[in-house]
């Protein structure tokens, strides 16, 4: 009976013209599920590092020191105004090649396509996080900062204990949007042969010519991820809400 259920479902879908027979082939099913797991892993790792990059860039952007603020501003502008795929190719095909040449004697290049995807997408989305956080940091009322200063807070303390926590609440809706974009953006990792869900699907549909069926699965998968992120964002918003501040 448990054997019959997937087969029955595939047969039923076949009747309405959708060919899902790859689900019954153990190796193709395994590669698709593995692809979904890689996408999840890539999304989680990239999201984590993008937040770190975002906070660091935001701290640099709002610094009164031009030596910190200016490079950060240039980096953010270049990152935001060039395609991520081109950045990924510049990193993977160019920097990776140079690195491989440099490290040839030292036993090869340790960076995999997966790591390069994490670096590029995390920095790209980090720039977007930084812009959102910067707006939040600049929205902290001056009186609050003066109050903190009169209590003896240093600039660093003001940033970490006052401006960033308030900016996080201010920027949270934008950050959640950025995270949704980030998850969608992980699909471009398939261009440098990271075995994510898109790559696994390409491998399957070149064999079976069932693009539409796999498309539906991919869209459902990303729809589910987006839904979870939005839910998590909503939960965080109510959790972090401070009465009388922000939205």
């Amino acid at each position, binding site marked *: 009976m448990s054997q019959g259920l997937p087969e029955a479902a595939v047969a039923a879908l076949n009747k309405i013209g959708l060919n899902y027979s790859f689900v019954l082939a153990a190796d193709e099913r395994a590669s698709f599920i593995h692809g979904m797991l890689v996408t999840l892993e890539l999304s989680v790792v990239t999201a984590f590092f993008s937040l770190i990059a975002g906070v660091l860039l935001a701290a640099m952007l709002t610094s009164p020191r031009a030596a910190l603020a200016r490079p950060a501003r240039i980096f953010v502008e270049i990152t935001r105004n060039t395609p991520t795929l081109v950045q990924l190719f510049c990193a993977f095909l160019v920097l990776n090649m140079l690195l491989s040449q440099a490290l040839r004697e030292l036993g090869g290049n340790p960076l995999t396509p997966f790591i390069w995807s994490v670096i590029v997408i995390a920095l790209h989305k980090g720039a977007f996080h930084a812009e959102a956080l910067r707006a939040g940091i600049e929205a902290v009322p001056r009186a609050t900062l003066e109050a903190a200063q009169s209590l003896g807070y240093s600039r660093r303390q003001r940033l970490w204990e006052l401006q960033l926590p308030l900016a996080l609440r201010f920027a949270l809706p934008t950050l959640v949007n950025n995270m949704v974009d980030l998850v*969608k953006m992980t699909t471009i990792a398939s261009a440098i042969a990271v075995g994510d869900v898109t790559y696994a699907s390409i491998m399957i549909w070149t064999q079976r010519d069932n693009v539409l069926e796999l498309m539906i699965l991919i869209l459902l998968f990303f729809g589910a991820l987006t839904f979870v992120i939005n839910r998590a964002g909503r939960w965080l918003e109510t959790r972090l809400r401070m009465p009388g501040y922000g939205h």
Partner: protein
Amino acid sequence: MATEQLSLPLANARRQPGAMITVIAVGALLALCEREIVSHAHNVTLVALVTWAPSLGKALWVNIEISLLAIALGTLAGLTLGPLLLSPLRVVRAVTRCYVQLFRNAPLLVLIYFSTYVFPFEISIGHHILPFPDWFKVTLGLALPASANVAEIFRGAIQSIPHAQWDAARSLAFGRAQVFRLIILPQCVKRMLPPWMNLYASITMGTSLASLVGVHDLLDTAQVASNTVARADFTVLVYFTVLGLFFVYCYPIARITRRLEKRYAFN
């Protein structure tokens, strides 16, 4: 006890020089390459870049064409769909909302694969067979999310106009269509312009994905060039040229958008 100055960053004053320097740097780099070649052609890498420059230029034009056509189609479709999101009929609202949600939440690359592999490569209308080239499929793949985004931008703009204006105009004996055309729409255009330009910039950047489905766009041409010349320094140069070209095209759009946002922010 020494009190340090409470320093709030002067964001606007500082933002401009940094960005300007970048633009000038990219331009200067290109000019330098050009001059180097013209004076004496001894540098193999730069000669290769100049040899490939016409193809790269043509390829960039392919990207720009795709982006312009995609935003045009997307805007037309989006402007039709936008008011449907506010339709008094519940069914119409629900169907349009589904469309908008689907195409806004789908990854761009997946939509491009979708339009490339699912649409036929030619369409026969009567006796005529119209070819359906790959670049046009990519354009459609970009126009679909564009239309969903424009619909959402349009809906937001309509709803941002205070409802009192509707009531006031109605009390002056304007019809519903008249209010919409003469009072609401002109204000919407202003509010829609900055997000619409953002959308255009992001579509332009999305056109680079066309190289993954075999359209000979800028990135694809750069790959061909780098494989043909097969020199490490040329590879570095050509990919960063591609990055620079996209930046030179997209950055001014972003700047104008920011200026418009600021100008329209308080009225």
